[in-house]
């Protein structure tokens, strides 16, 4: 696609939670054993009254400060599974709060871990089709709101965060070789069952607060098979080999998933980017945050070829190649 990611900013939940807090809340947890799998030492949590939309607005505002004229933005794509309301769409609220044009395209995209790549494909297609020129792609989630303090599978892992990316027209093909995947047979392995229509329509419905349920073993088996295959599919589509990729920036699912990805691909550690240690898993924001930090750290520079792969809740997965243009 002749589009480029011109800028990325991000925003994290206001509260920093380290693993001492987990231990205080759950004295019987073996924190060392948990960290050996998750790799997460600190998480960011949203504070009281702070929603995913608030985090997205903060990230968006940071990006808009860099622009001479925000009226160039004619589209908003907001990826979230933590909307402010069932309706209206959160993108409408964001448009108003950021002071963006009213004659603009705006849509919410309900995807989780795979959401940034889906968002890129969506935004890029809108620009390539000629419908739009500059899209503000936002990702944000507050999964911590769905997670019980005693949930040993999910609580040590997930963080609240948001990202903002400016997607613009480009003279060269900077984002390419997309692959997508969907397998709804895995839907129940990472799910918030209560609160929405399937629950409300149930004649035996009783209100219970929304709570995330994750079957870690099933999710892990899905990633073990699908992620290397997805990377293989991107390479086959592009005609490239792993040697020609400067950096793999995967969804920061957990240390366990990335360790096994490194093993199965037979790559050296410096070929893959990780930042879950003090960021946790911020769902659809992990990849844009990782891209931004990799750039700041000099792991990628203008001209670098990045392979990005995202996978998780749904099951849903997607990946692409990104030639760093800025």
């Amino acid at each position: 696609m002749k589009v480029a990611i011109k800028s990325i900013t991000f925003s994290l939940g206001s509260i920093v939670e380290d693993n001492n807090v987990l231990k205080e809340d759950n004295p019987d947890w073996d924190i060392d054993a948990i960290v050996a799998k998750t790799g997460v030492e600190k998480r960011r949590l949203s504070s009281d009254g702070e929603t995913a939309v608030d985090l997205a607005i903060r990230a968006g505002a940071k990006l808009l400060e860099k622009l001479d004229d925000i009226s160039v933005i004619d589209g908003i794509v907001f990826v979230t599974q933590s909307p402010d309301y069932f309706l209206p769409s959160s993108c409408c609220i964001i448009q108003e709060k950021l002071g963006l044009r009213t004659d603009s395209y705006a849509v919410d995209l309900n995807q989780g871990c795979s959401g940034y790549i889906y968002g890129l494909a969506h935004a890029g297609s809108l620009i390539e089709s000629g419908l739009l020129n500059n899209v503000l792609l936002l990702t944000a989630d507050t999964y911590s709101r769905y997670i019980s303090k005693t949930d040993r599978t999910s609580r040590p892992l997930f963080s609240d965060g948001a990202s903002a990316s400016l997607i613009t027209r480009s003279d060269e093909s900077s984002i390419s070789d997309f692959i997508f995947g969907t397998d709804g047979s895995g839907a129940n392995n990472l799910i918030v069952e209560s609160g929405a229509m399937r629950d409300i329509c149930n004649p035996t419905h009783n209100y219970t607060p929304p709570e995330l349920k994750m079957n870690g073993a099933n999710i892990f088996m899905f990633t073990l098979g699908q992620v290397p295959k997805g990377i293989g599919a991107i390479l086959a589509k592009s005609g490239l080999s792993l040697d020609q990729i400067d950096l793999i920036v995967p969804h920061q699912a957990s240390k366990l998933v990335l360790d096994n990805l490194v093993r199965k691909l037979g790559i050296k550690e410096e070929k893959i980017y990780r930042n879950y240690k003090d960021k946790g898993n911020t769902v659809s924001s992990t990849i844009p945050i990782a891209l931004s930090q990799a750039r700041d750290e000099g792991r990628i520079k203008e001209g670098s070829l990045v392979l990005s792969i995202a996978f998780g809740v749904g099951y849903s997965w997607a990946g692409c190649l990104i030639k760093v243009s800025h």
Partner: protein
Amino acid sequence: MIVDDILKIISTALELKEGALSIDSNMDDFESWDSLGHLSILVALDKDIDGNISGISELATADSVSKIVEILKQYDFL
């Protein structure tokens, strides 16, 4: 690969003493065989078995040695 090899793989993954694990053992028998321990078993099986276990989703919920062995037999790993 034989059943004893599987016992060794699982035992090592769970950091058990030699001889502690048998074909009759299940998840309830060992503190280390919790949800995290089960992930360690899955990783060890994927590493040590000459083949790809990622397509065998049944292993994710196999909560006993006999179930794991039975599944691997079904897929001709034993």
